[in-house]
């Protein structure tokens, strides 16, 4: 009789443990999804700000049409990105296009002292920072989620219920890393 009680007790504890583990994985997955949405919100904000910036500086930077064109192209490419790795790569191209644009703005004293341009620069700087902080937050929580799925015995529960590891938001293209950073008036 006693042995049966012990077995039943152990079984109940086991089931409770599985439930707890499953729930903690679900919580982590939701936090990861939420973290990704945070990045998404900031990326969208950046995409919305760029046309404003380009329109404001266009008139005074007629000799730099090429750079402006590249920024717009990079923006459009970033909007149509699919998946974490693709988005990371395209957003990085956009960042370097913007960096070049801001470096050029330095050559136009009229632009530099223009209140509108200053405000747009501040908004874009802040958005860049928010993207990188959101990315930091996402990568931290995604790493925790992935680790929880890989360590024993969490991996048993993870494979049982079909949890998948998530991609980290990082630069995957080696060529992108090699882009030299131009002098920034902006903190990156």
């Amino acid at each position, binding site marked *: 009789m006693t042995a049966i009680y012990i077995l039943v007790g152990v079984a109940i504890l086991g089931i409770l443990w599985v439930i707890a583990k499953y729930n903690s994985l679900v919580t982590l997955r939701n936090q990861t999804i939420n973290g990704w949405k*945070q990045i998404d919100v*900031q990326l969208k904000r950046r995409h919305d700000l760029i046309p404003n910036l380009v329109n404001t500086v266009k008139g005074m930077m007629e000799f730099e049409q090429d750079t402006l064109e590249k920024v717009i192209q990079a923006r459009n490419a970033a909007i149509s990105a699919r998946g974490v790795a693709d988005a990371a790569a395209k957003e990085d191209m956009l960042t370097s296009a913007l960096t070049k644009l801001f470096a050029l703005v330095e050559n136009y004293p009229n632009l530099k002292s223009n*209140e509108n341009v*200053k*405000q747009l620069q*501040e*908004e874009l*700087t*802040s958005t860049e*920072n*928010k993207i*990188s*902080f*959101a*990315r*930091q*937050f996402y*990568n*931290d929580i995604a*790493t*925790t989620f992935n680790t929880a799925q890989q360590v024993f015995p969490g991996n048993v529960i993870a494979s049982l219920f079909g949890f998948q590891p998530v991609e*980290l938001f*990082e*630069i995957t293209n080696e060529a992108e890393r090699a882009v030299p950073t131009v002098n920034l008036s902006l*903190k*990156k």
Partner: protein
Amino acid sequence: MSLPYQTRNIYEQQAHNKRLTLVIMCVFVLFIALLGLGFDMYLQGGVLPGQFLPVGTAAALAVGFGSSFWSLQRGAKAVLASAGAVPVDETNPQHKQLLNIVDEMTIASGLPRPAVYVIPDPDPNAFATGKNPQESSIAVTQGLLDSLNREELQGVIAHEMSHIRNYDIRLMTVIAALVGAVLLLSDWARRMMMYGGGKKRDRNSKEAGQLGLILLIVWLVSIILAPIVSQLLAMAVSRKREYLADASAAELTRNPLGLASALRKIENAAAPTASIKRGAAHLCIADPLGKKVNTKEGFVAELFGTHPPIEKRIMALQAMAYQFQRQPEPTH
């Protein structure tokens, strides 16, 4: 999250702070009860339970609990109002930048966004207050906005966000209220000792005997020591929180030198922050009273400052920066 320096994980830190709040509250409740008990014994002449009505004890405890409760509910508003803090104005580019930086730190810390205030005072300083991360506020002086660059301001805001995230704001609010209650009660007790009371003492003095004498001495000592001990306790807690908030700020911005350089600027502008009253000193990033204590090192300064010496904080941050450099860059 793997960080190059040793620090408690955030949930452990929060749990630790909640526990510490409880322990400190118990110590203060003991102090307050002792003050009230002595009052009863002195006035009514009883020593053992049953020989007197614990009116004073009950009143003292009521003052203690009442003031902590009031502080948690209304304290943040009172502190902000007494400092003359006004909500940020989104149309002002300087304030807009401050809001942007607060948003950045909100994202980095994963907390709800605090209310943001500006204090029209030329001396650079900042503080956070509130009872929990959901209902918190950050206030900075106009002088801080004027004298710091974006990176330094980000460091200061990260420091304040860390106070919110670590539940320091709640801890410090409760401690401030309890220190206030102890000061008030020991002041009353002293006045009462000087101006009368003790009329019924002789009647019970024979029964009371030695035990009564001992308790009376304990009470006298606690009247004298309670204010000092409670302040030292509050300061010790406050100083420890500052180091922790500096470390968490570096963790949020991944840029310890921004905060280090902000602290240097704040230190050099050593004028007292006139708008921030003594009662809110322990909430600030640097001592607003402009006491030289915070710039000196040594035992006395360590014991009596609400903040650790700025030089030591800067050194700790620089050490963190050095460790960051030796680590591979985070993927930004």
